[in-house]
């Protein structure tokens, strides 16, 4: 890794961040509806992507954390509670397996 590589990766990343934020004008109404609805499905899809990042079945402890987080996330809209549930699931799996 060099400063040049870091600079290029930073430029690509910052450009992607600015692209959506600096779009001119307001989006048409249907696009606005999609944007309002997008975060939850996007984060859900990214959760699965992160879970299956290695291409194979996830580690038992990682899966336990995921399932515990899902169980709590289904009933509580709290990021803190979901994180705690995930940690509890992870710890329980480490302890049991």
């Amino acid at each position, binding site marked *: 890794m*060099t400063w040049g590589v870091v600079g290029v990766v930073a430029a690509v*990343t910052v450009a992607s961040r600015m692209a959506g*934020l600096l779009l001119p004008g307001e989006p048409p109404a249907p696009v606005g509806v999609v944007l309002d609805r997008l975060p*939850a499905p*996007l*984060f859900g899809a990214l959760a699965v992507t992160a879970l299956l990042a290695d291409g194979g079945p996830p580690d038992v402890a990682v899966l336990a954390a995921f399932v515990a987080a899902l169980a709590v996330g289904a009933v509580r809209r709290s990021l803190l509670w979901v994180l705690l549930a995930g940690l509890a699931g992870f710890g329980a799996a480490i302890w049991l397996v």
Partner: protein
Amino acid sequence: MTPPQRHEDEPPTPADREAGPLIAAVPVAAAIFVFGTVYGAGASPLADPLLVVGSSALIYSGAAQFATVSLLATGAGLGAVVAAVATLNLRNVALGAVLRRRLDGGWPRRLLAGLVLLDETVGLAVAARHRPARVYAVAGVVCYVAWVSGTGVGVAVGAAAGTEALADALFPVLFVGLAAAAATSRAAQLRTVAAMAATALVAMTVPAATGVAAIAVALLAAVPGGRP
């Protein structure tokens, strides 16, 4: 400007309370700190300490930085790194467009906001019913400090035993939490479950396409029709 949907009948989230923005950001920042130590420890063999910490300060993106380090470690060139990072960053375009509807002010303010755009900071802003811009700004600063300091700790003392496994678990859990916080209705929860199932199907059949598929699937799940 069409304001984003508000759900005033729901109980307040932590971010809605007076000291809420900071309280809401702290657990996320703690998770980000753990990722930072793992990144700092993992990237140390590939570069000098100042460059590793500098990469976190300048890029501020775990996904992009982990991908860069992984690819460089396998001997990939700059083109491959840029292609991978650009693909991973596609979701930033969508998240930026989502965030734009929640920020007041002109382009200078949005330009500044873009510097701390992460899945986590946007997720916290989306989950906040009130003052999303303040929640976003506080989360952006707190998470930035956590990421850079976590990297520094990882470089200086390495990652504690078991930290990498914990980080592997925290990544998907954090996204589940962001999805739960952003799903403000039963219909939104159903769309989220559908997107997760479709992404899992793609991940198991065409693993290489999972990153792009996650965004495409989420967009499909969010298309107009039915209840909000």
